[in-house]
């Protein structure tokens, strides 16, 4: 819910990130990217002035899924893969609540893949924070559905022969209305993305690249280290040309349907040649979401798509209201009696 109903009045004392922290000891490994996600979430929700009692965090199983225990909101730590389904029930039963799912690449895309697809398809107004560390952490280091092809893990000592699923393309394919990506090391960017996620009416999928220090350390080094970051990271900004690289010296242009990197200092290209991003354009979002399979293209971060479509939870309420308007609220005694009763 984005309306004022879920926001604190100015007269109430200002809420801080601390208010969103529960009294439980946070048990992730020291240095885990999850700490950043928790901190940015608490900070952002506080800054948005949201009422804690209106918020529900639902999780499945995995390191990411301990998240609800650390949020001083309503929370439900459920079973593997099913957070999205349980959250769907919470939101449909009470659309007044702001319902969030904290999930990981294994929880959401492997065992919970089916529910994830159908949540997105239905566009239930639920916010999904998808912690992607490309590994199974809680079970101690087996490959996950987002692990790179050839990745050596405990269950793939010879390298995994599987190809990874692309969560954002999957969500787009399921008819997603809000798709975004951030990374644990970019605090400010993540806060912006959480804000946008919160503000979207409908299923919002925010993939967060998150480093697992123990079992997959360095998976995202390319996007965080000074030496490589500029050339590897592309921030998407609505209505802005796609520029990246040191001093924004590079850009993306479309060669037909094919995105290519151009050098803005080569004398042949100017900023006017570049693709201007439009986050309401589904086709562009697909092109962007597929960047990660091209080794020469940078990794996009930001809002890929933000569009509006009816939400399932609202339509469900509307159907009930409409039917009551048409026939009046049903009388249960009449219903029990039915249309063809008889007297003895």
């Amino acid at each position, binding site marked *: 819910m984005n309306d004022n109903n879920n926001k604190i009045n100015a007269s109430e004392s200002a809420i801080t990130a601390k208010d969103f922290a*529960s009294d*439980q000891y946070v048990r992730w490994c020291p240095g885990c990217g999850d700490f950043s996600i928790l901190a940015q979430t608490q900070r952002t929700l506080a800054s948005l002035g949201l*009422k*804690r*009692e*209106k918020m*529900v965090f*639902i*999780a499945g*199983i995995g390191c990411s899924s301990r998240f*609800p*225990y650390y*949020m*001083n*909101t*309503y*929370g*439900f*730590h*459920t*079973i593997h893969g*099913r957070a999205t*389904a*349980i*959250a*769907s*029930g*919470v*939101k*449909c*039963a*009470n659309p*007044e*609540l702001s319902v969030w799912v904290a999930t990981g690449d294994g929880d959401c895309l492997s065992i919970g893949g*089916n*529910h994830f*697809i*159908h949540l997105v398809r239905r566009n239930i107004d639920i916010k999904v924070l998808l912690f992607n560390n490309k590994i199974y952490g809680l079970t101690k280091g087996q490959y996950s559905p987002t692990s790179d092809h050839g990745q050596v893990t405990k269950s793939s000592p010879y390298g995994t022969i599987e190809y990874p699923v692309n969560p954002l393309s999957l969500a787009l394919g399921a008819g997603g209305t809000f798709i975004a990506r951030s990374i644990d090391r970019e605090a400010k960017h993540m806060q912006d993305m959480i804000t946008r996620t919160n503000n979207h009416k409908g299923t919002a999928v925010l993939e967060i690249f998150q480093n697992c220090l123990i079992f997959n350390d360095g998976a995202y080094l390319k996007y965080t280290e000074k030496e490589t970051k500029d050339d590897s990271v592309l921030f998407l900004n609505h209505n802005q040309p796609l520029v990246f690289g040191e001093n924004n010296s590079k850009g993306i242009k479309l060669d037909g349907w094919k995105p290519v990197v151009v050098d803005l200092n080569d004398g042949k290209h100017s900023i006017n040649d570049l693709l201007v991003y439009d986050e309401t354009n589904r086709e562009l979002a697909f092109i962007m979401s597929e960047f990660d399979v091209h080794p020469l293209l940078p990794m996009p971060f930001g809002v890929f798509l933000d569009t509006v479509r009816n939400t399932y939870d609202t339509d*469900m309420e509307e*159907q*009930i209201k*409409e*039917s*009551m308007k*048409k*026939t*009046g*609220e*049903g009388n*249960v*005694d009449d*219903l*029990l*009696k*039915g249309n*063809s*009763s*008889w*007297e*003895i």
Partner: protein
Amino acid sequence: MEDETPFEETGYNGNGKNGHNQTEIKYVDEVTIRFAGDSGDGMQLTGTQFAETLATDGTDIGTFTDYPAEIRAPQGTLSGVSGLQIHFSSRDIHTPGDEIDVLVAMNPAAIKVNLKNIKKHGIIIANSDAFDKKNLELAGFETNPLEDDTLQHLHIYSIPITKTTLSVLKDMNLSVKTAQKCKNFFALGVLYWLYNRTPDNTLQWIQEKFNKNAELAEANTRVLKAGYYYGETTEIFTSRFDIKPAALPKGTYRNLNGNDAVALGLVAAAKKAKLQLFLGSYPITPASEILQTLSKYKPYGVKTFQAEDEIAGICTAIGASFAGALAATTTSGPGMSLKTEAIGLAVISELPLVIVNVQRGGPSTGLPTKTEQADLLQALYGRNGECPVPVVAAASPSDCFEMAYEAARIAIKYMTPVILMTDGYIAQGSEPWKVKKLTELQSIEVQFKTNPEGFFPYVRNEFLARPWVKPGTKGLEHRIGGLEKQNITGNISYDPENHHIMTKIRAKKIKNIELDIPELELVGEREGKLIVLSWGSTYGAVISAVENLRAKGNKVSHAHLRYINPLPKNTGSILKKFEQILIPENNFGQLSKLIRSEFLLETISLPKVKGVPFKALEIENKILEILKH
């Protein structure tokens, strides 16, 4: 009928007498009729119409549907036969009848499949047009049984139903295929005449059903009336039959099948508890009708969520329960298997939830359209960990209302998932139900916790139930989950002592429900040589058998379990008074195992796993065999 004359004005005087045909009317006490034909022949509809008409006249009825898993099974084959059996009587009856008095056979296969169940001197009304060479071969008849001596012990009425139907509709410009589809109503018309009922109920139904298609309304009306007048004018029947209304208690009655009864029970419980009803479900035979029925009840505020799979069905329901709704999920055996892990979550998070298992033949996909009771041990034990769940079971179609209501009441009061067991037999069978008013139903109190003082998620009341808090309530923000809880605080705890305590509390909470359910009722002597113990849908056959034998002076007692976990607290003391305990079940002795392990008592199991319910006679024979020794 080519004209528009109302039926009442065509010479029928409402007393089964008319100006044209003076066939004698014989009064009978009870009759069993079976409508049978290809699965596309409309036999279910025909039988349902007939049953509803009889029920409306105050006759007691019991119905049984038997149909193939395929929507349009290969025509004319034995496996493609679909049937609906109706037992009706001027007495209070409990079953759809053991043996068939009248078989309406739309093809040779229908005769082949049902022949062994037809009473001696019974009646077959056959569509002679369907007895061609191909159909006879498909049914495995070398010669036409309507013409040879195969059926000489029966009364055969051979009627060219297809041809007559087509000729009645020949001026209507319908395709032959469409016209042929009306032929079931010809048979229905004949039956209405034979059993001295006007077709008015069905004529009205036709008008409502086809109110947007005048042509089909006209065609079906014509054919139904033609069937009725066929009986009247052809004089092939030497007698007609009638049956007096049953001496049922005074009140308002309706016909009700088990699946609709579950839907109504849940709606009534939600209304009584002042909660929103939420159903998360995935279509599965033979439970889908509950989802379909509840999806119509939008004016009653019911929310139905057709999930992407069985797991999401229960998970959305658990989410809705967490949010403060009366939540339910409905399924059959294979779906139960898939929901197992989530049931465990509902147990440890102590959230109210009604889980309905409309059992069918198993294991695996098994026999989707056939009845069985073989999921009892699954309901009791089929989860990881010490995971107690209350289990209740409906005894008959209308009892599905009572037990669905009970399941909801227990779930809410004790903050627990409850499993309601029904099965294909009672889910799709129907019987008259004395309509209940909301004011007659036991109250269901819900007090959502709103006061933060002294609140912990796992603090308990006198029933050991933890508080139910609606998310959105200020000051009561809390977290629950599938990890073991610290007693009272609900924080995660791996402490060995705590796990032991919490496991005991969860078990005790469920066991205590025995103080809140009716005691087991006993039919017959309090002690003696033999008691028959039954559960679920075997009730009808068992009580019929026991009543029959007791009427003949045999000493046999009976008790029926509607609550299986916990068992009624007098169960052991009743059973211990008998030398022998006979337990008939549509499984290989699952209740028998339970009784043995709970009470260290010997039992005699009477298993039947054939996809069809017991006949009363099968149970009578077993009782007599035991009593003789």
